[in-house]
């Protein structure tokens, strides 16, 4: 018996490790993965959904990115009328840009010299997917979800964002049917940029509120 618990005649040569074998190296599916597969198979068997419809829905979900939200923000920075409509009714204003919110409604919250906004969902991971795509893993973590409401300034600091004491931090807990998009402040020194160039300054994290846009 060799020291690593088995007996055979080949050497273990880590420098020449063979390529990954998904069948042996991926862990077996867990409880929820099995349940998801079973429900999917039942929906297809009963003719409620087709495999292609499910595939298309997943593809559409994966195709949404923060570029959508960046378009919304850049338009608001350059068009005061649009910004007013966006703050009054985010869902309707996004429709002007061809973005449909589906069953949820969008509330856009504006950062000002007096207020910084931060979005979290403490109950699960509600996220404005129609404008930001899929949420980052940290947004879904228990640490972010519990700490963003309780010590938002400490969380912001860990993202490199220091909010002055004379600026209110306004946390939005996305607990029900609303979804939230932060409208960041347009950085100083960007007066000469057009809408397309401004879009490039708007990142996902700015629109969640954990950071602010950097000047170009």
């Amino acid at each position: 018996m060799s020291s690593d618990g088995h007996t055979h005649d080949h050497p273990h040569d880590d420098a020449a490790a063979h390529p990954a074998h998904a069948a042996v190296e991926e862990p077996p599916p867990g409880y929820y993965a099995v349940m998801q597969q079973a429900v999917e198979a039942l929906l297809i068997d009963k003719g409620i959904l087709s495999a292609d419809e499910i595939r298309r829905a997943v593809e559409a979900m994966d195709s949404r990115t923060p570029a959508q939200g960046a378009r919304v923000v850049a338009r608001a920075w350059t068009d005061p009328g649009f910004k007013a409509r966006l703050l009054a009714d985010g869902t309707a204003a996004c429709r002007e840009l061809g973005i449909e919110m589906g069953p949820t409604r969008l509330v856009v919250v504006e950062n000002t010299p007096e207020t910084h906004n931060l979005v979290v969902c403490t109950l699960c991971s509600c996220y404005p997917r129609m404008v930001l795509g899929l949420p980052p893993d940290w947004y879904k973590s228990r640490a972010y979800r519990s700490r963003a409401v309780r010590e938002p300034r400490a969380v912001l600091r860990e993202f490199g964002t220091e909010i002055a004491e004379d600026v209110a931090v306004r946390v939005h807990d996305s607990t029900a049917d609303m979804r939230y998009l932060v409208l960041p402040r347009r950085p100083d020194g960007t007066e000469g940029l057009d809408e397309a160039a401004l879009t490039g300054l708007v990142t996902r994290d700015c629109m969640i509120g954990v950071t602010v846009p950097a000047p170009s």
Partner: protein
Amino acid sequence: MTRVATVPEFAPRYRAGDAVRVRRAAPPGHMRTPWYIRGQAGVVERLCGTFGNPEELAYNRSGEPRQPLYRIRFGQAAVWRDYAGPERDTIDVEIYQHWLEPVEPASNPGSPAEKAPR
């Protein structure tokens, strides 16, 4: 013109600016009222509309009558006893009407949460 009600719903009881308190209750089932905000007093920021009651929808029931949903603004310093930040910091939470009760100003004068920054 009279409005044609297609879906049964409760009429909104509160308006923006009203002082309200979240019920301190612990019913079983699927709730969308976070624990940390139960029992806290805040101010109605806006009425969001009426929506199917998630506590019913979770069990494949109709969710009707639909419940008015509000965004309620709370002062962070009142919600967390050891909150590390200025008084002006706030938290907004979406709460359905059946989880809210009015705050009578006379019965609870000077509670910090009732003066949550707008």
